[in-house]
């Protein structure tokens, strides 16, 4: 059974220094508020994994929480570079960042293998690319046909954190829209936290909906607008203007640090974070 917790308690209890942490989300339902809480609590030496590290990973990396990143596409979608990720890789600021890089198909297969508790995932991938020279992928012969296939080591995060639309009072979780690899990432993890837009009496989920039953989830936290500036379909849209603004904020170390200090470290929770951002917009 999932515990219904405050976000602060859930991060305290579930995320430890040195952990391998997946804050999954494929553009949609990205657990920003949970990422901010990790920054507030000053977690260090995390191995972060995610297929598409975007702005929240830029923030975690720039705030010094990460020592390694496992990923398959690291950018600000439609905008350009993640400046803090680049600074860490290119100039080792604020700390060196080790990277393990994949293609999406490989990382998706590795999560599916993790969810299945298999040692590796298999795919017809990593062909024509130089990635295998720089990452952990091996090639195997199909035992039935002899075809050469790629094998990727299963991903098994210590803790997976995701955001979803709804949970019920027992902690069963419902999500819809672009659902990425979140279900696999939760099932692959030893521990999991799901932040949701709302906790309701009944999920009213149709039979084939994407539901994570309470007994496979560690903690559920109600965090309204917990995916902002990403989106929660049915609740609010992606704030594309923020993603564009982030480019300027993150470009320089001092503007980045000032933003994190003011809006994340200088606030106690997601409500204060939103008030702080709104205040900044008024004063801009």
């Amino acid at each position, binding site marked *: 059974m999932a515990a219904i917790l405050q976000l602060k308690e859930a991060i305290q209890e579930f995320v430890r220094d040195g952990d391998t942490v997946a804050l999954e989300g494929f553009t949609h339902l990205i657990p920003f508020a949970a990422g901010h809480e990790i920054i507030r609590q000053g977690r260090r030496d995390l191995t972060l994994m995610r297929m*598409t590290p975007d702005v929240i990973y830029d923030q975690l990396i720039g705030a010094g929480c990460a020592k390694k990143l496992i990923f398959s596409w690291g950018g600000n979608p439609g905008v350009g570079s993640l400046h803090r990720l680049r600074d860490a890789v*290119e100039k080792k600021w604020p700390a060196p960042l080790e990277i393990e890089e994949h293609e999406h198909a490989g990382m998706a297969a590795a999560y599916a293998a993790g969810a299945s508790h298999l040692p590796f995932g298999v795919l017809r991938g990593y062909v024509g*690319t130089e990635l295998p020279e720089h990452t952990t992928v091996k090639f195997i012969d199909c035992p039935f046909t002899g075809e050469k296939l790629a094998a990727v080591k299963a991903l098994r995060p210590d803790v997976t954190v995701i955001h979803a639309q709804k949970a019920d009072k027992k902690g069963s979780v419902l999500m819809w829209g672009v659902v990425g690899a979140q279900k696999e990432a939760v099932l692959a993890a030893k521990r999991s936290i799901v932040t949701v837009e709302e906790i309701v009496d009944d999920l009213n989920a149709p039979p084939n909906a994407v539901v994570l039953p309470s007994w496979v989830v560690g903690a559920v936290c109600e965090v309204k607008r917990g995916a902002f500036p990403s989106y929660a379909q049915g609740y609010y849209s*992606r704030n594309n203007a923020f993603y564009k603004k982030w480019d300027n904020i993150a470009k320089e170390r001092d503007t980045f640090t000032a933003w994190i200090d003011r809006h994340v470290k200088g606030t106690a929770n997601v409500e204060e974070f939103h008030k702080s951002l709104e205040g900044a917009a008024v004063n801009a």
Partner: protein
Amino acid sequence: MPEKTLLEKTTESTAAYTADEMMTIAAARMLRNGASCFVGIGLPSAAANLARLTHAPDAVLIYESGTIGTKPHVLPLSIGDGELSETAETVVSICEIFAYWLEGGRIDVGFLGAAQIDKFANINSTVIGNYDTPKTRLPGAGGAPAIAASCGEVLITLRQNKRAFVEKLDFRTSGGHLEGGDSRAKARFPGKGPTAVITDLGIMTPDPVTKELTLTSVHPGVTAEQVVAATGWTLKVAAEVKTTPAPTASELNVLRELQERTAKAHAGQD
């Protein structure tokens, strides 16, 4: 970002157009009606949607976020904007889109962009400089290697200049025709690889035998010499270089309306 050259209008339309508009329109024309197309974000997404809104209403657009048969009203900024899932025929998980649909060999056309491309249409979207000590760290592979490998054919669209069109890639992220000749056929690629590269200057297609990119069409007002000069290797030029038909008024209108709607929506004014 290269300057947008304002080209003189030729015959079919009355309005002037930019080189970027010509590129997007020329790229859009390559997508046949009814094809299933795995779409990259940015220039490919603009071209694929223009195709859908003009000559290819039955093209099935698929984005790697798992959205299949999507018909966005505005161009997505990210690969998983709500616009894509709300207008999709179905939305599947990431594991499913790559395993069942892409690597399952169900997609006719992959539509990709690139930071660097070489003469055999191999592309780099990983690093500029050395991998371990990069000069510029780019976002990386994403779905591109699987798209380049698995789709029936691949269209590539990017702006043409010597920084992008290079003799040697800093990193090969996704395989085109590898070392040319039959090297792709000998490797374990399901799809036949890049069939056209569409830029702001012209169109290049691989030579049927050597697979080396060859200039086969220049956009109106552009000379073959200009395209050669904007290429970091000695670009092969076809014996007969065609001139790309200029954008029609209707193509331009549809593209401009799409981009106007998109700009408004992304500024948060929609």
